[in-house]
C-alpha cells in the first residue's frame, strides 16, 4: 500500500468506529472477493471509485485516504453491490456511514454544501425557478407555497446540521 503510514496499516480502531455506526456493523465480514466492484456501474466508467477498495482501505485503517478522498462521494447508491455481496456486507450503507463520519469532520464536496445552504436559505434543495413554476401550471398544478423555513431551521439546528455546515465553511476559509 504505497503512501500509507506504518501505524495506519495497523489502525484497527477505524473499522471498530465504523461498526459502531448503524449500517456499518457488517464491514469486518468482507473477504475481498470483488463481487461489489464488478457489480458497480460507477466503477465501470471511472477508476476513481471501487467499492472493494474503499472497504479494504477502511479495514486496514487508512482513515485519511478514505475520509478525505473523493471515492466515497462517487457512489451512486444503486445498492447493486449490497444485493450481490456473498458475505452480506452492507456496502452502500457503509459508504453512507463513511460519508457521515467525514461530514461531521467538515469534509464534503461543494455540491453537497450548496444543497445544504439552499435548504437553510429557502427550505428547498432545488431552488424554485420561473421554469419550474411554468411546468407546474402547464400540467395543472397550483403554484408551490413558500416552505416553512423557520421551522426547518429550528429542526436543523436541533440536529446539529447547521454546525456541520459551519465546520465546512471554516475549513474552506482556512
Amino acid at each position, binding site marked *: 500500500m504505497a503512501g500509507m503510514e506504518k501505524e495506519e496499516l495497523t489502525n484497527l480502531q477505524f473499522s471498530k468506529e465504523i461498526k459502531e455506526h448503524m449500517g456499518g456493523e457488517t464491514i469486518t*465480514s468482507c*473477504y*475481498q*472477493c*470483488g*463481487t*461489489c*466492484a*464488478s*457489480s458497480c456501474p460507477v*466503477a*465501470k466508467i471511472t*477508476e476513481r471509485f*471501487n467499492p*472493494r*477498495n474503499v472497504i479494504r482501505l477502511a479495514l486496514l485503517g487508512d482513515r485519511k485516504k478514505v475520509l478525505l478522498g473523493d471515492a466515497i462521494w462517487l457512489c451512486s447508491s444503486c445498492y*447493486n453491490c449490497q444485493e*450481490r455481496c*456473498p*458475505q*452480506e456486507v452492507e456496502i452502500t450503507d457503509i459508504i453512507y456511514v463513511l460519508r457521515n463520519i467525514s461530514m461531521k469532520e467538515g469534509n464534503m464536496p461543494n455540491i453537497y454544501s450548496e444543497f445544504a445552504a439552499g435548504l437553510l436559505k429557502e427550505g428547498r434543495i432545488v431552488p424554485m425557478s420561473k421554469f419550474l413554476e411554468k411546468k407546474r401550471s402547464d400540467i395543472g398544478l397550483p403554484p408551490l407555497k413558500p416552505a416553512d423555513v423557520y421551522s426547518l431551521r429550528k429542526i436543523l439546528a436541533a440536529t446539529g446540521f447547521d454546525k456541520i455546515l459551519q465546520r465546512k465553511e471554516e475549513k474552506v476559509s482556512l
Partner: protein
Amino acid sequence: MDELKVGVFLSTCGNQLSKILDFDALMDFAKKIRSVVIVAKSSEYWRGEGLRTITETIRAGKINRVVVAESLPKLSEVNIVQAIEDAGLNPSLVEILDLKDHCAIPHKSTPSEAVAKAKAMILAAVEHVKLLEPVEKAEFYAVKSVLVIGGGIAGMQAAEDLADLGFAVNLVEKASFLGGLAARAGRFFPTDDCAICIQSPSSDVKTITHTSRKCVYRSGFTEIPNMKIYTNSRVTKVDGVPGNYKVTIEKKPRYVNEAKCVQCDLCTAVCPVEVPDEYNAKLNKRKAIYINVPSVYPPAYVIDDAACKFYDCAKCVQICPTGAVELNQQPEKIRINVGGIIVATGFQEYDPYVIKEYHYGDYPDVITNLQLARMIDSFGPTKGAVIRPSTKEPAKRIVMVQCVGSRDRRWNPWCSSICCMISLKHAILIKTAQPDIDITICYIDVRTTGREHEYYYEKARDLGIKFVKGRPTEILHDPEVNMLVVDVEDAILGKLLEIEADLVVLAPSLVPAEGARELSKILGIELDDDGFFKEYNAKLRPTETKMRGIFLSGGATFPKDAPTTSLHAHSAALKVSKFLSTGKIVKDKRIAIVKEEYCGDCEFCPVTCPYGAISLVQKDDEHFVAQVSDILCEGCGVCVGTCPVNAIELVNSRPDQMLVQMNALMSVKGTSKPLILAICCSECGHAAVDSCGMAMMEYPANVRVMKVPCTGILQVHQILEAFKVGAEGVMVVGCKTDGCHYEVGSEKAKRKVELTKILLREYGIEPERLEMINLVYIEGDKFAEAAKTMTEKLEKLGPLQLMKSL
C-alpha cells in the same frame, strides 16, 4: 440389610501430605464417625501394598463400605474400583476423595483450616458412602449384523471392512446402482486415477495381495459372502435399541430380473421413451429402460417406472432374449435385525439455478462441475469431449467460477472444501489433453490443503491455466455470436474484466444429500446447523453420533475427498466393530428411576433428555408415565433437574444422598471465612478443581467441593438447601455450555441458577451469593480466582441473614 461397616483409608501420598495435614487428628475424627469400623493410614492406596490392605479387609468381611483418600482420583479410581470389585464388593459402594489436590496443596499456607476442611471432606464421604446402593451391571444382547445406508465409497468401504471382520452386512442404496457421487466423478485428484477403482476385499482369494486394487465391478466386492446389497431401496423405519434394531427397508421393483439380464442392450434400442439422464446430470437423454454405465453393480438394466409405459408398450419384454424383463414385479418390504447402523449418505451438488445472476438453466453453456466431470469421463455422454451444450461444438475458451453458493451467507455459508481441487483436476485434465484450450479459473481463495494438493495447483499454473482472484458478479450472454461474458474484477489489479467464454463451469457448493433430514428423523439422530449429520464430538468421537449404535461415514458429515472418505469409513467400521464384536453391550445400571406414583402426564423429561432415553407410556385409561430405557440412559440426571414434581431420581445421586454431603461439608467450619459450597459436575467442573491443586495454586479453605454427575441435575430447592445447611455462598461449577459432556446440562444449570437468584432476592438474600462458572480442565486458575473473589465478596456482604421462610 447388613450392618454398615465403613473402612476409611487415608493416603499420605508418600508422606508429602503429613507435612500439611495432621493425620492423627484426622484419624481420631474419622474413628468417631458412626459406622466407621476401620481407619487406616498408608503412603499410598491406589496400588501395591496399600491396595492389598483394602482388598484383604474386604475379603475378611470386616467392611462393606470403603472410603479412600488418594491423590489423582481420576487415575487411581480405575485401579481401586477394579480391585474392590475383584475382592467381591460392589464397586458403587466406594467413595474416593482427594485430600491432596482438593485440600492439602491448595490450602498449604493455612494448615489448621486445611485440617478442618479435610475433616469435613471425610465426614461427607463417609455419610455419602453409607447411603450408596449397589449398582449392578446390565448386559444387553447385540446382534452381530450391521446396516450401512448409502452405497457410495463411504458406505462400500465401511461395508467391506465390516464384512471382512465377519459381521453380516446389509448395504442399502437408494439409487438403482452402487457407486454414488464418486463413481460419476470419472477421475480422482490428486492421483488422476479412476473413480471406480477400490481396494479389493480380503475375501477375494485371487486378489489377496497388498497391492490389490481393482475396479468396483471386478473387485469381488459384490460377491463377499456375508454381504447383502439392496439397491433401489430406502430405509423407512427403524425401531429398537442400540445392539438390536428392527429395520424396515422398502425396495422398489427393478422390473428386470438381475439373474437373467445379460446386458445385450437390445431393450434400449426398442424403448420409445426418452427422459433426461440424471446420472449424466441431464446432459443427455436416456431410455426408460437403462443402465448407467456398463461396469456397474448390479450388472442388470432397470426400468424407470416414472417414465415407462409398461403394458401399453412392452416392446422390451418382447425383444429380451432371456425373458429378464418382468413388468409385474412388486415393491418389497424387507425387515432385518441389526446391531449397529452406519449412515453413509454423502453429499450432492447444490442447484445453482437459484443464483439468478449466473443464469444456470437459462444459458445452456453454463454448466456445473459434475456435468463437466461427466463430459470428461469417456463413458459419459460426450465420450470424453468437452463441448458447448448449445451447439455441440468443442469449447475453446472455458471459464470456471468457484464458490457458487459456497462461502455465501445467502445460500450456504460453509466452504465446501474440495471444489478448488475438483476444478483444478478438471482444468489439468482438459489442458493436458488439449493445450490450445484457454482456461481461466475465477476464485476467491484457492484452498489446496491436502497432501500433494499444492503441487497440483503448481502444475495447473505451469500448464498455463489462468487464475483471476475475483468472484464474478454476473454471467452475460451475447445471443448474436452465442458467446458468454464473465463480468469479474481482478481484485489484485483492481481492474474490471469481461472474460469471453464458450463454456462457463460453475463449482456449486456441496450440500447434504437429499433425504438427509428425513433419515435423521427415522434414526432419531441430529443434524448440524448446515444440515449435515452431526458427529458426537469432532475431536474425540468422530464418526459417532450421540446414539450408541449409530455411526457416520464419509460425506454425510461434511464434503470430503476420496482419501478422507476412506479414512472416515475405516473409522466408522472400527467403531461398529468395537461396539458389537463381543455380541453384548455391558453397561452399569446407574440410571434415572421414575417414581410412578408421583409422575404424571407432563412431557418435560422426554423432551429434555439429550439421549432420547425417556418415553411416555400409558399407565391407565387417563394417565401417562415416563419410562426410562436402561440402555439409552447415560446417567446424567438432567431429567431430575427438569422434573417439576421430583418424580424422577438418579441412582446414587438422590436428593437425600446429596443433602448429607452438603450437611457434612458445612458442619466442620474451622475458619473465620464464610463457608462456600462449590457444586461441581463430575466432568470438566471437578477436573478444573483437580488441576488447581495439581498446578499448586492456592485458594481459601472455606471453599468446599461437592461432586454431582452433571450440573444439569440440580434443582432450585437443592441450591437453596445449601444456604439452609450453612453455606454463605454457592458456586455451581460446570462444563462450558457448548462443551457439556451431557449436551444440555450446563445450559440448564445456568438457567436454573438465574432463576434461583430471583428467588434469593425474594427471600432477602443477596443474589451475588450464588454464581455459576463454566470451566474446562486447564482452567484451574479461573476456579482459584473465582473462589477468592467469592470469598472477598462474601466478607464484604457480611454474614448471611437467613429468613425463616427458607
